[in-house]
């Protein structure tokens, strides 16, 4: 069995997991109107860590996340030769070295924490985080490593903001995933971390079962989601099948839900094809914004917090169904003890990924 625990969230809502849970469980959002953030100096809604002023922000966040992780696991794990660190990120410290956006930060992490193995950076657009957690599980099941620490991190930079603006993909209000009036994403920045291990005893605060998931390409279009949800459908189907989990065993879906018209529509079709339209579902982008390579890790960490606290978070920003296949999107927090949560992600390049977390 593979276990997952020691989750960490750093976001505009707080520098600790506890601060983040206190905020999201009160349905507070990290999104604010940031002056002159856009191309041509336009004001934009962003989920930006406004007091993050370090010179090397990416390095600061992944280092803080690893420090927070290490307080929640057996202290020998971090420096074990059986441990690997996997970083999921799209752009790393792009503003500092465009030709090598990860090299310096990773080297600093290795040195500061005396890591034995060279960390692996996975950069697969918006599915990076879910893919990285699945890779961690695969490495452990193959006995290549015994423990993996997955850290997802991305920053808001002019580069990504201008890019999404050029695609007309940024919402003019805080994003509203799955809502009828949604009109684009809200960019976010932050860092999430989880520990994946074959040994339950390393977790000081308890853990969950990780049912390793799968990824599938849409083979359809580079920036646009598939109209049939083919890749997401295939990924969810295989993840359920290989773990012998029936659709009606899923208690909650932590969806990707970027709040673009086409993405959320695609997800609704894929979930409908998967027989999952009645399952309570939320997107957490209304709290954290779209944190790109970090999203899968932050949102998996938040799902684990939901299981620990017995609360399903509402899909912030959602009021009225706006997809052709109606989903059971939560418009209020729900007190519940979910046993099994499905986490999905979809992204540029046609990638789709999914995983399942189950209470022990």
């Amino acid at each position: 069995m593979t276990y997952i625990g020691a989750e960490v969230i750093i976001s505009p809502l707080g520098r600790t997991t506890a601060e983040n849970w206190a905020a999201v469980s009160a349905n507070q959002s990290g999104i604010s109107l940031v002056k002159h953030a856009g191309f041509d100096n336009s004001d934009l809604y962003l989920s930006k860590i406004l007091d993050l002023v370090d010179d090397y922000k990416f390095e600061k966040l992944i280092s803080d996340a690893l420090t927070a992780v290490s307080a929640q696991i057996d202290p020998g794990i971090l420096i074990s030769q059986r441990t690997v660190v996997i970083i999921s990120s799209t752009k790393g410290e792009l503003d500092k070295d465009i030709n090598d956006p990860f090299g310096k930060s990773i080297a600093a992490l290795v040195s500061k924490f005396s890591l034995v193995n060279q960390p692996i950076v996975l950069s697969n657009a918006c599915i990076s985080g879910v893919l990285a957690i699945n890779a961690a599980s695969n490495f452990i099941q193959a006995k290549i490593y015994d423990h993996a620490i997955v850290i997802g991190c991305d920053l808001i930079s002019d580069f990504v903001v201008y890019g999404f603006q050029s695609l007309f993909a940024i919402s003019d209000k805080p994003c509203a995933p799955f809502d009828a009036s949604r009109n684009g994403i809200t960019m976010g920045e932050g860092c999430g971390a989880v520990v994946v291990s074959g040994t339950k005893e390393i977790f000081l605060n308890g853990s969950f079962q990780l049912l390793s998931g799968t990824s599938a390409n849409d083979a359809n279009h580079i920036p646009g989601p598939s109209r049939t949800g083919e890749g997401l459908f295939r990924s969810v189907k295989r993840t359920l099948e290989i773990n012998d989990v029936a659709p009606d065993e899923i208690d909650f879906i932590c969806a990707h839900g970027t709040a673009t018209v086409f993405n959320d529509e695609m997800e609704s079709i894929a979930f409908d094809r998967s027989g999952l339209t009645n399952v309570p579902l939320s997107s957490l982008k209304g709290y954290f914004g779209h944190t790109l390579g970090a999203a899968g890790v932050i949102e998996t960490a938040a799902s684990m917090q939901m299981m620990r606290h017995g609360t399903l978070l509402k899909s912030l920003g959602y009021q009225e169904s706006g997809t052709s296949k109606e989903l059971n999107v939560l418009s209020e927090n729900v007190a519940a003890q979910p046993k099994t949560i499905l986490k999905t992600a979809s992204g540029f390049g046609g990638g789709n990924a999914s995983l399942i977390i189950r209470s022990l």
Partner: protein
Amino acid sequence: MSFITTYCHISADQCSVNGKAVSARDRAASESWFKQIYKEQELVYPKFYKMDSLSQAGFLASELIKRENKGLTGRYKDDEIAMLFANQSSSADTDLRFINSYEHNGAPSPSLFVYTLPNIVLGEIAIVNKWYGENMFAVLPKFAPGFFADYGQILLSTGAKAVLCGWLGVLGDNIEVFVWLVESETNGSLNFNQENVLKLSGFNPA
């Protein structure tokens, strides 16, 4: 058992398949080196001209591997060929061009922005071939045969029957491309392991 059945190299001056040169760069030509290969090999996929250099490199290598490995696509179901790619500088080549678009050319270019992610090349190859399998792109400080051997085997043990692996070093005129196909349901002479990947790569062990 799994075997390396076909492979392709593209350096700054030469393109070869299974070690045999198929194209040599004409430095006097006005066209880019990747376009020279595309034309000389008589490939027909007009979208090639819209791709960035990273995607062009992956496209060329995968097409030449398919041509050499007859019947490849028919042997597998549409989700049985996984892709496992990596490089050292992510999508830096296109990132620089995108920055140039908004710093010097008036406005951020959406057609460049969509290529500012290293995994886009995997999407392009998936689209050409209608491959729905597992994809992964890693950014590593140097060519790491052990990573490919380890994760390639993981992909083969979790549902894939073939893995298209690739190191796509493409940064300006610094071109170090090595793409190879691993198949599990076949016979071959080159076992898929770290030593053979390193040997075939032609890259110096660090």
